[in-house]
Each structure stands twice: as C-alpha cells, then as structure tokens.
C-alpha cells in the first residue's frame, strides 16, 4: 500500500473516530469529560501528599512542594496512557459488536492498519487535551487558589527535551494499543478488562505517582522495561523536576523499548489477524 493511501485512510479513520468520540454529544459535556476526570484523579493523589505534609511538616516545605510538582506532571501525562489504552482496548469491540463495521473495514483493501492507527490518534489528541488542561488547572488550583508555590513553571519547559520523549512515548503506547486490539480480535468480552489491566499496571509500576525505587525490589525490573517509565522520566527532566536524571540515557531506553513494543505490536497484530481469518472472528459479536 502506498504511503499516501495509508495516510489518507488513517486520516479518514481519524475523522470518523473524532466524530464518534467528540461530536455526538454535547461539547460542554465532552470538555467536562476531558477535564474533570483526569483532574479528579490528580486531586486524589495531590491531597494524599498534602495530607502527608500536614501530618509531617509544613504544607509548603520544599520536599512536599517538589514532590507535588513531580506527581502532577506524572499524573497529567498518564492521561496519554489512559486515553490510548482504554480507547484502543474497546475499539474492536465497538466496531465489531456495536457498529458491525469491522468486517467491512477488513474486506476493503489495506484499510485495517491505517484504520486502527487513525482511531488511536484520536485517543492521542484526547490525551493531549487532557494533559494540557490538567497542567493548567493544577497550576491554577495549587499555586493560584491554594498559594502552595509548587515549582511548576509551564513556560519554562524545555520543549526540545519534551517533544522527542513524548513522541516516542506515544508511538510505544500506540504499539501497545495495537496489541490490545489484536487480543480483542481473537478474544471475547475482554475489552474492558484489558484496557484497565494495562493502564493499572502502568499506574502501579510506571513511576506515575511515586518513584519506582519505592517498589519492592523484585518488581523493579519490570518497571525498567516499561516505556512509560522512561516517557515520564524524560517528561519530568524537560520540566526540570528530575535533577539527578540523565535525559539522554532515558531517551535512549525509551527509543529502545519503543522499538521493541513496535515490533512486538505489529507481530502480535498480524498473528491475531491470521487467526481471526482462520476462525472467522471478524464478525463475531460479544453478547453479554
């Protein structure tokens, strides 16, 4: 398939996905949906830290302020994980069972892969909106409303450090999303469990709300092969929140883990595709 055709198909798929996920309901509701949920998640962990500060030392102590900033950034960028994992995990179910279009997409020439990517990109955009809004609201709430002087300078972010990490991270998350689509093609009624499991594991092991050094030593090796760990490291480094970090090393690990997930993602997807063709699964409906 020519690159131009691939891009065109992915673009169309993106347009369809955007219509489904964004415009069918009240835009106000959609905006609220994008802001309130991630912000509430952030508030839970932020208040845990504030509680810690109030029990331990002063709420404005340097440690807790620094930690809060570290945590806000991790939690905000975790929105990419949530959006991509949950969005792509239910994609096959929705299009196969509810809209019953998966088989038509599959039998049209070469559209399945760009279709999945296009729909995944909708989740990326949704994730980006959540990230930006969560960061803005965090500064407004903690520094504006609560006067906590958290060292979170959104204008001082090193974009040259931020973008390579974020782009690589998104590619790796899309590759994992690809795997989730693949598993859903060959499985039944797993869509919600899969998305929740992967995002839950990343939340626990990816260094989202606490440094992975606090995890029991026997699970730390798992954290060290997850792209999310290095994605969050590079992001925090670009925000100046990880003074002891080594940006280039983290970026290199991120590139390596991304490459591996990409290769595995494509391989798993192709295997699932073959199996689905063999067993006739492209039009199977999940009935509850």
């Amino acid at each position, binding site marked *: 398939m020519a690159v131009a055709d691939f891009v065109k198909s992915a673009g169309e798929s993106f347009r369809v996905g955007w219509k489904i996920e964004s415009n*069918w*309901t*009240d835009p106000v*509701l*959609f905006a*609220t*949906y994008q802001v*309130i*949920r*991630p912000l*509430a*998640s952030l*508030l*839970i*962990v932020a*208040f*845990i*830290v*504030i*509680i*810690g*500060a*109030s*029990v*331990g030392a002063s*709420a404005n102590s340097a440690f*807790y302020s620094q*930690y809060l900033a570290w945590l806000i950034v991790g939690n905000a960028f975790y929105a990419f994980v949530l959006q991509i994992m949950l969005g792509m995990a239910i994609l096959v179910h929705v299009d196969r069972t*509810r809209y019953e279009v998966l088989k038509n997409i599959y039998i049209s020439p070469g559209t399945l892969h760009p279709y999945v990517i296009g729909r995944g990109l909708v989740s990326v955009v949704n994730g980006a909106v959540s990230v930006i809004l969560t960061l803005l609201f965090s500064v407004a709430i903690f520094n504006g409303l609560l006067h906590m002087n958290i060292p979170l300078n959104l204008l001082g972010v090193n974009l040259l450090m931020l973008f390579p990490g974020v782009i690589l991270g998104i590619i790796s998350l899309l590759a994992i999303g690809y795997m989730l689509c693949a598993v859903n093609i060959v499985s039944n*009624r*797993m869509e919600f*469990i899969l998305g*929740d*499991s992967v995002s*839950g*594991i990343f*939340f*626990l092991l990816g260094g*989202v*709300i*606490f*440094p992975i050094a*606090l*995890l029991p030593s026997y699970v730390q090796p798992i954290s060290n092969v997850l792209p999310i760990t290095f994605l969050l490291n590079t992001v925090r480094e670009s925000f100046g929140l990880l003074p002891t970090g080594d940006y280039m090393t983290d970026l290199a690990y991120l590139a390596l883990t991304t490459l591996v997930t990409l290769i595995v993602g494509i391989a798993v997807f192709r295997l699932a595709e073959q199996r689905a063709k063999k067993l006739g699964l492209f039009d199977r409906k999940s*009935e*509850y």
Partner: protein
Amino acid sequence: MMLPKATPREELLTNLRAAYARMWVRLRGSNREVTGLVAEIGLPILTIGAYVILYRAIGLPPTAGAAVIIGGAMIAFWTNVLWNMSSQWFWERESGNLEMYLVAPVSRMSVLLGMAMGGSVNTSIRALGIVLLGIFVFQVPFQLADPLSVGLVFVLTLVALYTMGMLFASIFMLYGREAWNTASLLQEPVYFLSGAYFPRIYAPVVPFALQAAGSLIPMTIGLDAIRRLAINGEGVAAVWPHILALIACTLILFPLARRALNYMESLGKKEGRLTLRWQ
C-alpha cells in the same frame, strides 16, 4: 370481555419472582466467567497498591493503607452502581430486553430491585476478595471492636447506595450516550469527593465545600463509619449520625427513584423513545 384484576397478593408474588429472577441472572451471569471475577478483584489491587505505596512514601502510618483498602473495596460498589445499575436500562435497550421488561406485568422497580440485590451480593464477594487480598499483600492493620456494627453500617450503606443507583437508572432510562458519559463522569470525581483513597478523618486540609458535597453520596458516609469501626476501633456510639444519615438517604431516594421511573417511562411512551436504539 374484561379480565379480573390481579389480587394484591398475586401482584406482590409476581414482582417478587421477577426481582428474584433478575437477581439470579446477575449472579449467574457475572460469576460464570472466572476471568471477570479475577479481574474485578485483581484490578482494584493495582490502584490500591499504588496508593498504599504512596502513603508509605510520605510517612503516614499503616492504618492509612487500611483506609485505602476499605476505600478500594467500596469503590467496587460505586462502580457497580454506575455501570450495572445507572446505565443498565441503556444496555437492556441495546440488547432488546427493555421491551420485554416493559410488556411484562411487573413493576420496573422490582426489576431494578433484582439488579440491585444481585449487584450487591456479587460485588460483596469481590469487595471481600479485595479486602482479603489487600490485607495479605500489604499487611495493613485492622482493629475490629464491634463486627456487628460494621455489618449493620455496611448493609445500610449498600441499601442507600443501590437506592441511589435505582434513582440514576430511572433518570437515565431514556438516554444513551449521555448515560454512559455521566457514569464516566461520576467515577474519579466521586472517588475524590468520597475520600475513598484518603482517610478524610486525617484530612482537615480538604475544603469544607468539598467535604459537604462528598457527604451527599451515601458511600462517603458509609466509608467514614466503617473506617471508624474497623480501623480506629471505635464503637457504634461513634457512628450513630452516620446510621441515621444512611437511613434518611434511603428514605428520601427510594420514593424519588420510583417517581423518576414512572415519569421517565410515561415520557418515553409519549415521545416514542423507550425502545429507540443507537442514541
């Protein structure tokens, strides 16, 4: 030819049978696939684990971890209320079952009651699994001075919570994607407001307005009471206001749910939206 009206006893029996059958469907359906059961116990542990580790990181005592485990278990009920009660008519309509409920000679309240009973039993099994697994993995302390009171508060919390679910289900009867979106919207914000993941008794830092908003949710009241009884080792005297508040919630919410259901059903019949799919 006019048929005689069903006697009140016949009506009651029919409705009880319908409620029991709907409960049975929920129990049977949810526990048939082990994957679902394992996931519903295992997945919350991931989030609970993250918060327990965070508490340890910031130096709070292990009882904070116990509070999180109870919160995580109660969230299982809230999630069940949102996805398996509030938006249940949406699923039933999509699968063609709503029509069957509507042409059957039973009150829709008895169907909702069946869903609530099935959901609460089902989720209790999962919640117990979460608590036991949480205690085993994270080794947090509990101090159960009065198990009977814990049981009483727990049951009252469930009754109030599922009555709220019945109200939501009634309100969302005619809605499609809006019901889904609203259920989504009521997840994390309620986790936050109810203090499920942080013990509110430690939290004078939470602004009063937020605490007041959280107290409108029966789960918040129940959670606080259960934590006092099961972690702090307080007696039933400490949670009388909670018990009264939970009873009041149920007494207010039940008639509201009934009214909302009748109103939405007659509105749906008038506008022809009751069985309209793909909304």
